C-alpha cells in the first residue's frame, strides 16, 4: 500500500549507509532508485530498512521516533515493531489491537563489508551480495553527487578506471588508483554506486586494508578530497551539458 501504483524493483543489493552511521535511536533517510527508505537499528542491533512512508497518511517515518524497538510516526503516533514492521498500537483507539494487515513496508536489509545494504524487491530468493573484500577493510566517507549513475560511470570510464561490473549495470564496482600518503604511491579502492534517483547518486568507497588511528584519518581525508574533486568535475560537466541542452 504505497499510495500509488506498485513499482517493480530489481532483485539487487545496494549499499545505503556505513554500518557505524546507523546509530542508536536514529532514523537514517536514504533513497534508492527513487524510493525513499527509512533505515534504523533497534536496541538489539538489528537493522531495519522500510519504505519511508507511514501506511496511515503517508508521512515520512524518518521524521518520527526510533524508540529502540519500534518506529513511531510523528503524525498520529502509530507504532511499528522492529523486524516485522507490524503496527502494534494506534493511540486514537488505544484499547483495540491494530489489524494484522497494517504494517510498514519492509525491505531486505543486511550488513556486510562495513555497509548496510538494501534489497527493494520482494522476490525470493534475493540475489547474493557482490563479493568485495576480505576481512580487512576500511570504509570511506560517502560522496553525494548531483548526477545520475550513468554520468558517474561514464566519467569514471573516461578516466580509464578499471570498470568491473559486479553484476547487472546498476551496481558498478570500479577500481581506481588513488594516492596513499604513507606510501607515496596509489591505493586500490573500490567504489560502490548507490543510484538514488534519476538525478542523484551516492558513491561509497572501501579499501581492502584495515587502518587505525592517524593512518586511518589521513586516508579518509585524502580519499574524501579526491572523491570531492571527482564529484565536482562530474557535476560541472553535467551542468555544462544541461546548459547546452544535451
Amino acid at each position, binding site marked *: 500500500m504505497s499510495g500509488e501504483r506498485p513499482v517493480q524493483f530489481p532483485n539487487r543489493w545496494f549499499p545505503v549507509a556505513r554500518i557505524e552511521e546507523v546509530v542508536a*535511536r536514529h532514523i*537514517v533517510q536514504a533513497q534508492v532508485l527513487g524510493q525513499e527508505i527509512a533505515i534504523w537499528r533497534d*536496541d538489539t542491533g538489528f537493522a531495519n530498512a522500510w519504505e519511508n512512508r507511514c501506511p496511515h497518511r503517508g508521512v515520512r517515518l524518518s521524521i518520527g521516533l526510533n524508540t529502540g524497538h519500534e518506529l513511531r510516526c510523528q503524525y498520529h503516533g502509530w507504532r511499528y515493531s522492529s523486524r516485522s514492521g507490524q503496527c502494534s498500537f494506534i493511540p486514537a483507539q488505544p484499547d483495540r489491537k491494530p489489524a494484522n494487515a497494517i504494517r510498514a513496508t519492509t525491505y531486505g536489509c543486511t550488513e556486510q563489508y562495513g555497509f548496510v545494504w538494501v534489497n527493494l524487491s520482494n522476490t525470493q530468493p534475493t540475489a547474493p551480495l557482490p563479493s568485495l573484500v576480505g576481512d580487512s577493510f576500511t570504509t570511506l566517507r560517502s560522496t553525494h553527487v548531483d548526477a545520475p549513475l550513468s554520468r558517474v560511470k561514464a566519467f569514471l570510464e573516461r578516466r580509464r578506471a578499471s570498470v568491473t561490473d559486479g553484476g547487472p549495470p546498476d551496481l558498478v564496482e570500479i577500481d581506481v588508483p588513488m594516492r596513499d600518503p604513507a606510501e607515496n604511491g596509489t591505493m586500490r579502492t573500490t567504489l560502490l554506486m548507490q543510484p538514488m534517483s534519476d538525478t542523484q547518486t*551516492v558513491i561509497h568507497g572501501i579499501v581492502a586494508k584495515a587502518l587505525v588511528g592517524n593512518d586511518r584519518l589521513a586516508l*579518509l581525508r585524502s580519499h574524501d578530497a579526491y572523491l570531492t574533486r571527482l564529484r565536482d568535475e562530474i557535476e560541472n560537466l553535467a551542468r555544462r551539458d544541461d546548459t547546452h541542452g544535451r
Partner: protein
Amino acid sequence: MLKLYDYELSGNCYKVRLLIEFLGLAVERIPVEFYPAQEHKTAWFLAINPLGQLPVIDDDGLILRDAQAILVYLASKYDDLGRWYPRDSAELLGDIQMWLSFAADLNGTVALARLHDSFFHDCDVAHCRAAAHRLFRLIDQHLWFAEQIGQDWLCSPTHPTIADIACFPYIMLSEEGGVSRLPYPAIRRWTDRVKRIPRFTLMPGIFFASALPA
C-alpha cells in the same frame, strides 16, 4: 529582568530562546509581530533597533541586536561553567566565530528560502537553495570528520557551544524552504544530538528526538 523582543516563528529568535533555556535564565518575552503587522519596521521598534530586525535583547538597559551577538553576550555573562563560549581558549573562540559567521551565511540562504516558501519573500529562491546546499555539504563534511575523532559538536570535543545553537534552527527548518537534508547524514545525526541537550526546547516546526537508551 532580561527582555527579549521576539517572534515565535523566527529561527533567529529561537537561537536566543534556546540559550536562555539552556542557561536557565528568566526572561520577559515581548512579542513583535513580524507578520502580518510588520511590527519590526514600526517607529517604536526602529527606535530600539534601527535595522528593524529581530531578535533584540534589553538586559537592564543594555540593548543588543543580532542573534549571534546576543548568544556571545548571554553565554559570556551568564554561563558560570564557561562552556557555551569558553573565553579561556583562543582556539575555540576563533573556531566558534568561524561557525557564527557560517550561521550568518545560513541566514542569507536557507533562511531566506524558508521565508520565500512560507511568506512569499521576494528573492532568487533557486540561488538561495543552491547556496544552501553548498553550505550543507561543507558542514556535513565537517561534522563527519568530527565524528571520526569522537567529537559530537561543531567546535568542542566535549560539549556544545553557541556555534551549535547558532547553526541549528535554520538547518533544522531547511525543508520549509525546499532544502532537503537527505544527502547529509552527518547533519541529521548532529541535529538529533542537539535535540538531546538537556533543557532543549522546541519551536513550531521542530519535534523532539528519541531519548538515548539509559
